[in-house]
């Protein structure tokens, strides 16, 4: 197994966060473009953008679980997993 360095871990978290931010931004801009053209699906696109954005921290926490598991820092992996479980609980309440 190749070395999972601190730098690679940081880059993984960065890409996860940026992907979520830019994907949500894409949906927002598309939604506004549809709104200007009078399309009915504008609302759905904007709601999708919000959902993607709000799911981004959860995706980042999931990557923390993976990263700390790879670096064998199991107590941090467990802490991240607990946070992920709490986010799931908040979505289900």
């Amino acid at each position, binding site marked *: 197994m190749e070395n999972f360095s601190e730098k690679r871990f940081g880059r993984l978290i960065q890409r996860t966060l*940026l992907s979520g931010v830019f994907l949500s931004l894409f949906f927002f801009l598309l*939604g506004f473009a549809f709104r200007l053209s009078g399309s009915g699906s504008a609302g759905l696109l904007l709601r999708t953008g919000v959902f993607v*954005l709000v799911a981004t921290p959860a995706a980042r926490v999931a990557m923390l679980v993976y990263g700390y598991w790879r670096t064998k820092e199991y107590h941090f992996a467990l802490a991240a997993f607990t946070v992920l479980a709490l986010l799931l609980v908040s979505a289900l*309440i």
Partner: protein
Amino acid sequence: MLVAFGSVIGILGSVLGVGGGIFIVPMLVLALGIPIHQAIAVSLVAIVATSSAVASVNVERGLANMRLGVALEVPTALGSIAGALLASRLPSNVIQLLFSLMLAAVSVSMFLKGRGSVKGAVPAAAELRPAGGLDAAFFDPSTNSHTAYRVKNMTPASFVSFFAGGLSGLLGVGGGIIQVPVMNLLCGVPFKAAAATSNFLIGVSAAASVFIYLKKGYLIPELASVMVIGVLLGSFAGIHILYRARSEKIQAAFSIFVFIVAVKMFARVF
């Protein structure tokens, strides 16, 4: 106008380590007449945007302490859920009064500390960082050197983080206004790293609360998306300021900012 306002909030959020909820909620309620629950929901979404954008850069630069962040995220997320659930049962004026008094004390303490010598850190050589520990180091371009620090007092910090998370659900703020002073004053984390780590973790507390507001149908997607676009523009500009600025200056600005918020909250009680 909302995009411009969001940009200013984004800059403040990324530089000070707060999400900007304390500005967004009053602005939406007082200037636009948006009902408080909807304003809180929009504010929480904007906090998630600021946090995600700023953290993405700060993690890569090594400014955000991920281990400390994830350790504090557990009590913060717990508090956030508890705050959202208890929102309707607690007497808000009592909470606001206590909160404003605590903020005033924090702001004075931070201002005095910022004026003294300190940068908030307990000096430690970078190589002393034990594997798997919370201690860390980062490169500070304003001093052109590496700053290493040790993290202390995690037990009381976890208790306060629970309270900070509770505020997220209760008032629509990310909790950075508490997390930054806690990490700086209680844990001994240098201000820049504290602001970056706060930004890293407030996204989780805001997301935990926003799920609950989403399910109650309080979110206006159009308003949230406009605010998010503005906030993201400001956030990326703010990251640059945080990285280059001197810790003492940011610390002084933050203490004044916290004091103003404390006075405003105190005034609202009476």
